[in-house]
């Protein structure tokens, strides 16, 4: 444990300075200091994906990533997926497909899928499943989530 000190990080395009132990998991800084509660605590061990955010475009478990590690990098949370007040296409297709029941895993699904579509816009069903295998859903909405991701591809369904 180290003493609290100012830490600068860029989240959803905005620079923030928080005072905390730099070893604090990014998740707690996002939720408790920046008021961005979209990313969720699920296991604290990087095994469920509920806390996923994007760091320079890559999905990262924010529950076991210390905040010092993201200094100078671009952090994107579910709140920052859309732009100019418009939702990301995935946020629309998740509603259209009712691609969730409780929605606790949804933010992690959305950011992981957004990174996937950036990387692989023509991804197929099996590719979506592979990419989301680290994101757990207990309600059984998996097939709907896959449909929503496929539906958000530039080519559509």
């Amino acid at each position, binding site marked *: 444990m180290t003493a609290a000190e100012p830490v600068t990080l860029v989240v959803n395009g905005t620079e923030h300075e928080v005072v905390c132990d730099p070893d604090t998991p990014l998740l707690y800084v996002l939720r408790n200091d920046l008021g961005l509660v979209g990313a*969720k*605590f699920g*296991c604290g061990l990087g095994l469920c994906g509920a806390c996923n955010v994007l760091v320079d475009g890559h999905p990262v478990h924010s529950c076991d990533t210390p905040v010092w590690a993201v200094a100078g990098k671009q952090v994107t949370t579910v*709140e920052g997926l859309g732009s100019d007040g418009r939702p990301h296409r995935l946020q629309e297709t998740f509603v259209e497909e009712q691609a969730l029941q*409780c*929605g*606790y895993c949804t933010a992690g699904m*959305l950011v992981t899928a957004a990174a996937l579509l950036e990387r692989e816009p023509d991804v197929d069903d099996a590719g979506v499943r592979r990419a989301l295998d680290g994101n757990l859903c*207990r309600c059984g909405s998996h097939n709907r989530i896959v449909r929503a991701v496929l539906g958000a591809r530039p080519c559509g369904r």
Partner: protein
Amino acid sequence: MTNPSIQNNPRPDRWLTIRSDGVVLVRSGKVELGQGVLTALAQIVAEELDVDPSRISMVPAGTDQSPDESYTAGSMSVPHSGGALRAVCARVRALFVAEAAARLGVPAESLRVSDGAIGAPDGPGTSYWELADAVALDREIPDAVAKAPADYRIVGQDLPRLDLPDKVAGRRRFLHDLRPHGMLFGRVVRPPSRSAVLMSVDEDAARRMPGVVAVVRDGSFLGVVAEREEDALRAQAALRSACAWEEEDSLPSERDLAAFLTSAPAEETVLADTRGDGGAVAHPVRARFTRPYLAHASIAPSCGLALWDGDRLSVWSHTQGIYKLHASICRSQRLAAEQVVVQHVEGAGCYGHNAADDAAYDAVLLARAVPDRPVQVVWTREDELTWGPLGPAMVVDVEVDVDPAGQVQRWQHDVWSNGHASRPGPPGAPLLAATHVASAETALPAGDPPLQNGGGSGRNAVPLYDLPGQLVRTHRLTTMPLRTSAMRALGAHLNVYAIESVVDELAVLAGIDPVEYRLRMLTDERARAVLQAAAERAGWGDGTPGLGIGFARYKNRGAYCAVVAEVEAETHVRVRRLTIAVDVGLVVSPDGVVNQIEGGALQALSWTTKEQVRFDARTVTSRTWEDYPILTFSEVPPVDVVLLDRPDDASLGAGEASVGPTAAAIGNALYAATGLRVRALPLTPENVVAAMDD
């Protein structure tokens, strides 16, 4: 069917407020668990009142204002709360129309309601909103005839779920997300094993840590409250390493759980006895089925939030029963009912009695040390898996005698299980921390709801088939080494698995197609219809290998469901496809029903093929997602759901109907694919190999 929701809350103002600004506030005592029930209830209200759904505002349940509808459980929310709201809205609508008729000087029969506007065609009009202050709802009002289903325009349509926009945007909606002013973070140090007693703890190091506001110890209950979440976690770890516990072995052998369950002291209940003299026996069939303890394994660990303000206590919880939790807290804290308010806030998916209530009570105990500051407690993943109530391990023995013609002469079904109900509310089912404090309350072994309420261990143990000579019994354990309680479908998971496996075996013995064999024993047209629909949609009989079927009517009086599974078994059992036909009576929200049926089926697939709570002599050892793996995306097969709409029949509930039939279909499909009857769940490679000796 009697409806306790309306019987216990007959006054319409408990349910509805019609406001002059054109908004209808709806207070249901049922809570959103991720099943979409608030949207379905809003549809029923909009339909019966004839208002646009956008005018409906669903008020989250709280003990200061909501009708008491007991637990949100048992697939009863649309039947009970929906039924009550339908009746209340029909009465309120009639009252407003009568008032409008009196004011307008026209017969009530000439008036129509359209989005709250009341008037005659080409005549003068008024509205709910104009009359809102003139029509008194704070009294019992006469019954009125509800709309005919043929006139429905909103019920039966897919309305966008009310909670989805917040959830996809990441807005503050879950209890875990609340940050009321001045909130502190609480964490609990649980005992390291089930019967551990805290002998001593050096609290000083933790107290001196940055941000720590309070350390709370009461008997073996130990927790910390801190300004920042990471401070609380550090102090929790420091406290944990500063404890001296006295531990002893208290759990049975996981390896021979069936021997424990069938030999432990138990209370026997006969659920059905139609034994006669019996006839000639050609084929006795005897089979033992088992399932291990199962974990709820919701994606969020449980959470509670509490605030003490003088002698008043406010609690926020994702409980299934706000009034039951309220009663438990009042009793344990010796508070009068009016001193405590329990408010529901959504948590992650709830599949039965999980640790939500326990987390709420943790927050109550920790917040007591810091008056006027709200304290939020979030459980660790490990505590969630190891200390949350478990779905009971079970043994089912089935013995059947068949005559030379293949007809069943005698059917005996025995269930050994801990009870499936230890929900909070009554004495004897204390919240977890109340069993750890110095003046500990004693937890009685879990009970079972009576069969007329759906049963617990014996849920769906009585076959729906026309089988003579039945003897069906439950043996509920009167000792409880691991705390068990209600988990989706209760005993129906293994009971349906067992019945359907034996029926399948009998069909093979008789040389009759398994679907045809079932149809011969079913007279209920709705049961026959789902079996036929599932078989037809799945291509039953077209030569596809590895198909198996399972059927049940949930609780023998709820939804009808048949499932065809296609299984492939190499090193692992892999389900390639599920085809489901379901009849839930009147469908309020079609895609909502399909979502519930799919969800129930995939959860059952996960339980049936993968899940098993591990434990040693002292405690549960399934601590992480690596020790308790659940179904992943790559393992999820396509699920095709056929919805048989019965608009003129009562809604029967959807949340649990597909669980038993899905498990059974997978077991029977595994037999079709491999010739092996695997009767020990889960269907892991070890259990499949072990079945080769049978």
